[in-house]
């Protein structure tokens, strides 16, 4: 079920979770954990960080869900703002420790055919470039749209921006990623040449 496709069902579930219903909390987890994980993966490019941070996000949700109020913004916008804050907080800690984020070291690369490998490396390269080279706003749009699977409207809510603005940022981000990939062919293609 996509949250945006079943707003009423989601609302009932979130309200029950706010009241402490374990079943509803579990359902929320089922619905959102993979999306939060992919969002963080797109931001950090590291699957281990993504697992740890996704867990941290859900613990923060527990702390804050009683204070969550239905306003104009959907639950997803609130949730991914928590995820964003967790990523930023982790980045600060990593910066203080002088730790650099490795390139998706946890992603599976074995058992891939040549074409799949190229595509995977393209995706990894894009993921890394997104994490390292794109401006913050572009990174967030890429992670929210393609990692978390939010719509433009939901992304706009999560970022406190207008939908038109998000579309502009999305265009710039995709174009920049394309340019980065075009300028830096993947190793497999270089070997073939």
């Amino acid at each position: 079920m996509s949250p945006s496709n079943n707003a009423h069902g989601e609302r009932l579930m979130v309200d029950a979770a706010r009241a402490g219903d374990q079943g509803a909390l579990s359902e929320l987890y089922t619905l959102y954990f993979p999306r939060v994980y992919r969002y963080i993966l797109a931001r950090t490019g590291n699957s281990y960080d993504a697992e740890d941070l996704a867990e941290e996000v859900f613990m923060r949700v527990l702390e804050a869900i009683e204070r969550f109020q239905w306003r104009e913004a959907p639950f997803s916008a609130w949730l991914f703002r928590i995820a964003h804050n967790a990523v930023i907080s982790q980045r600060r800690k990593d910066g203080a420790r002088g730790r650099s984020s490795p390139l998706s070291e946890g992603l599976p690369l074995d058992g891939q055919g040549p074409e799949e490998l190229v595509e995977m490396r393209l995706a990894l390269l894009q993921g890394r470039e997104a994490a390292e080279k794109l401006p913050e706003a572009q990174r967030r749009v890429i992670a929210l749209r393609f990692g978390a699977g939010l719509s433009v409207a939901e992304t706009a809510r999560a970022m406190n921006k207008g939908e038109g603005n998000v579309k502009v940022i999305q265009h710039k981000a995709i174009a920049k990623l394309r340019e980065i990939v075009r300028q830096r062919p993947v190793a497999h293609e270089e070997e073939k040449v």
Partner: protein
Amino acid sequence: MRKRKFEDILEECVSALLEGRRTLEENLELYPALAAQLEPLLRTTEALSGRLQEQAPAATVQEQIRLRFLASASERARARALTRPIRGFGGGAAGFKRWTLVASCAAAASVAAIAGVLAFGNSGGETQHESTTSAIASGSQKEAFVLNLAQARLQLHVVQEKARRGLEIQSSDITALTEATSKLTQTGDASTDSIGKKQLQPLLQQQYILLQHLSNDLSEGADEQLSAALGTTQSLADQWGIAIAEPTASPLVASPTPRSPTPSPSAPASPHPTATASPVPQPTPSGSPAPSPTAEPTLPPVP
């Protein structure tokens, strides 16, 4: 103006691509004048989103995090339950003093619980649940009941989730469920707490239905635990004067194996050759507050 329009078209194509409504080629055919500009962007979108959507944490990792998440939620519920009665004490300085007193007692109970866990950990003795329950034994019966009820709910939820996901249910899961239920028999009864009875009734009903269902699916050797769990459930229901309805003829789930006749609570469960439970439906969230018809236009603060 032209640029703006292109961004709208790009977004339309990206959404159609991501949602599987149109292929890349169909998008380009729809906007032939912009195909040269759209194609590289949509190919990049396709590659990036395709790979990202394939990524997921290992199922075991996801399940472990889920259990920690739910355990943490349960702990929070316990803490809330401990402080809930003080809200009825009234406001003002007197109310605050009483709040402080109860909070101090709760804190003392927590410290005792932690000390108990450490002590038992050193001696390799009882479980955390048992030590926690022991630690609060000096408090009121009602508080102990609330804590035990939360623990029983959590344990039931763990087994329900496993069953729902088709994961293997260990005999230790059933034993833990029985122990959690047993703790409830030691705290309170219907003559002193009608609210507790209302809270206990759905728990016992769900637990009974689940155990009956599992009796068809658990492996041989799990009979003993299952029988004990059913017996404990029934005796707790008797203690509180709660009538448990037998599962209806309508199937709980689409189970691949035909159901055998429903055993009575005291009868041993019939063994089956599989140890993996077929999925059990989640109970729908109860007590959900109705959605507020009025919506205000700002986001709440985020931690």
